[in-house]
């Protein structure tokens, strides 16, 4: 990990309870499958991608009781909207539950629709077709230039078998990074202060008085 801690890009993940958000992130971050529920202890990862630092935020704790706040979405350059391929209800939630809180994300936030638990899917009897998924992905990104993307921001994944997981993140990073000059101006960290990174030698001097 580089000494530079400040992230250039913030990636968040949204989705109903138990669709496998943490499993997806853990599979990507450290290549293991952890079938663990309520996300406890770690919900923030820094990932280096080339010269860039990416902060991957996971939802924290047990979301059965509380919705996500705008706080979580603030400044996000990309959002993974995860649903369980085996549950059409989790798919419908994406628009219904998360559309409004994504207003707090950056205006040009890339939204990637990601179906999870592909390994459990009965291909002959699908609730949600890939076409429906792609349609939602297009609709969510109608403010972006879809032509710049190799394909629609839609993926079907399995964190158990590692199918398509890296691809989701590669897709995001390739689209979002490096930040354009305009984005840097807009979201650039220029005079923004990171307490940890910017804290400096004065720590010691101030103690003496």
């Amino acid at each position, binding site marked *: 990990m580089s000494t530079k*801690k400040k992230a250039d890009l913030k990636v968040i993940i949204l989705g109903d*309870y138990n669709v496998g958000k943490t499993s997806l992130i*853990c599979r990507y971050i450290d290549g*293991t499958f*952890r*079938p*663990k*529920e*309520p*996300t*406890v*202890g*770690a*919900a*923030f*990862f*820094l990932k280096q991608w080339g010269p860039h630092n990416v902060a991957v935020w996971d939802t*924290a*704790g*047990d*979301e*059965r*009781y*509380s*919705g996500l*706040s705008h*706080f*979580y979405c*603030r*400044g996000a350059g990309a959002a993974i909207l995860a649903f369980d391929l085996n549950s059409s209800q989790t798919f419908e939630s994406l628009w219904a*539950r998360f559309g409004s809180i994504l*207003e*707090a994300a950056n205006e040009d936030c890339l939204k990637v629709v990601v179906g999870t638990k592909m390994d459990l899917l009965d291909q002959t009897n699908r609730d949600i077709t890939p*076409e429906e998924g*792609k*349609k939602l992905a*297009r609709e969510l990104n*109608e*403010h972006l*230039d*879809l*032509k710049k993307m190799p*394909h*629609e921001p839609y993926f079907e994944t399995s964190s158990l078998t590692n199918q398509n997981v890296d691809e989701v993140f590669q897709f995001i990073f390739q689209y979002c990074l490096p930040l354009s000059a*305009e984005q840097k101006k807009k979201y650039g960290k220029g*005079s*923004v*202060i*990171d*307490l*940890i990174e*910017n*804290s*400096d030698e*004065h*720590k010691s*001097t*101030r103690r*003496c*008085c």
Partner: protein
Amino acid sequence: MACEEFPNNFDVVVLGTGLTETIAAAAFSRIGLKVLHLDRNDYYGGAYSNFNLDGIEDWRKANETRNSDCNEDEEIPDKVKDLLQNGETVISLNRDNKTAFNIQARFHVRERTAEEQAKADLKFNTFKFPSLNEQNPTSDISQEEEEKKEDAEQSESPATDSGVSSCTEKLNEMLSLTTTSDNTAEVCEIKDFSQPEPPKSDCEDSHAAQVENPPKHREWTVGDIKDDWRRYCLDISPKILYCCGDLVDLLIQSDVARYCEFRSVSRVLTVLNNLLLQIMNLALKNIKANYLDKPFIEFLKSKKLTPNIQHYIQHAIAMVTDSELSQVGLTKTKKFIQSLGRYGNNAFLFPLYGTGELPQAFSRLSAVFGGIYCLATTATHLIADSDRKCCGIITSKGQRISCRYVVAECSYLPPSLVLKLNKRMLSRAVYITDSSLLPTGDSELSLLHYVSPKDSERPVTVLELPSSACVCPKNTFIIHLTTISNHNDPSEDFNDVRETLFANEVLVQNKDTVKPKILWSIYFNQEDNSKVKLTEDAVTNVLVASGGGDPGVDLDWCVAEAKVIFHTVCPTEEFLPKPPNPEDIILVDDAEASTCQGTSEYLEKNKEEISEIQETVSTDSVQEAV
């Protein structure tokens, strides 16, 4: 989503998500206590919340209908009685609360004409794609759409305004060049308020640097502001942080800092002899560099400072009134000066998106360590056992929850349990303006301690936030005003500061002026609930947290308060120790545990936990284990 029952047992139930409560909740969760955190509102923060323009309107409406009265003598419903065990009694809690009084909000600009509206609608529509239907081939995007996209891109940079902004930007660029050379001056005189509302010609020859004369302003309409409603973050309790204050230290120590970003309060302003002045950072930097370990007076002497300096130190640095004891003034001056240099040459920080982000950041830490959060839910009753010791709550959903401690923000407790020691109100105003109080090319974040000649005991704290603080769209500013209430109508408390610093609406309608124009305003009163204590009647194992509303600029006292609450419950535990590095945390499940010696021992001890966290000495050992 909030339909499921909570677990029935917690260590601590926390009511209210203000800053003190969220810090305490994070501290409890951090050491492994089970925390249930409720808020009666459907948003975080209580008195520390922030809203966008639509949200603040909802908040205003909700406060009109709210009722702070608690009917302590009400009959206990049977369904609550059924949940009680032998010897237990219940105490009714406040289910609702007014967070603000006498709220008045309005626009100070005209509505759009039909023509303007049509134009705005058209522009808005270029961003919208026709919804693609399924027959459309998915892989290629039609020519038509591409053209639309280009249109959209083109209209993106000038954003919502009609070409005026590009001109404004250029002017601002030029202005910023002219101002930089002024920075060597110890104080820079910008505006002369003793002059009458300046006619343009007067302005041009009055000062050499024309920095204060802002570019021609667009004429704003209600629609222009409303279009960007979601880009406003309006704080109910705007606060700043001392760079060397306890809150900054806590944010770093607890690692909550990585959820937040800050901007420096880049200018400290004061009004002296009717001049709005900037206290230059340069002078203050020297204090830090050379006089940190010497008496302050030496610095003052060595600089051969004029009596005006006394004014700066009193009003801009220490921010104390004439009657304030010197002890307080010295402490505050010291804190200010110590804060210089840690994050540049400024003493204060402001959180991006507003103060309301801070409680959410601590909530997130609590949730990360297992705290359960539920908004729009509260406790209707406290349960006390036969020894008058609190042993649980009844939730507004009618569930009985047992707990060892209840931490409640004071507005959740009935008057019989809590004493409010500061019997006063604050008056607050929030303005959206079209320019800065002291325009320069840079987007400065400014603090001004305004002392009215008419009432020096009630200074007004003015916090001016630019769009770079992520609280408003480009070309607008948010200006927060706070003072101790003296009138029934909160807007009257700001008459003097409004007349001095802002354009007069009636006189200069549609004319250029150097003073900022108020485009939208909200006024309200807030109860000062910053000092509270429990009454003698209170049951034990209930702890009260203050409800905010103090007139001070910072939040360090919330840290102290949360610490006391935490140590009352856990006298020997560490308060928000640094969390383990994410790479050093692993989640463990039973399958993994069986293959891992060290982990299974750990699991033995914590069988009842849903999830286990293991802090490992090094990542290597984890890898071996797995």
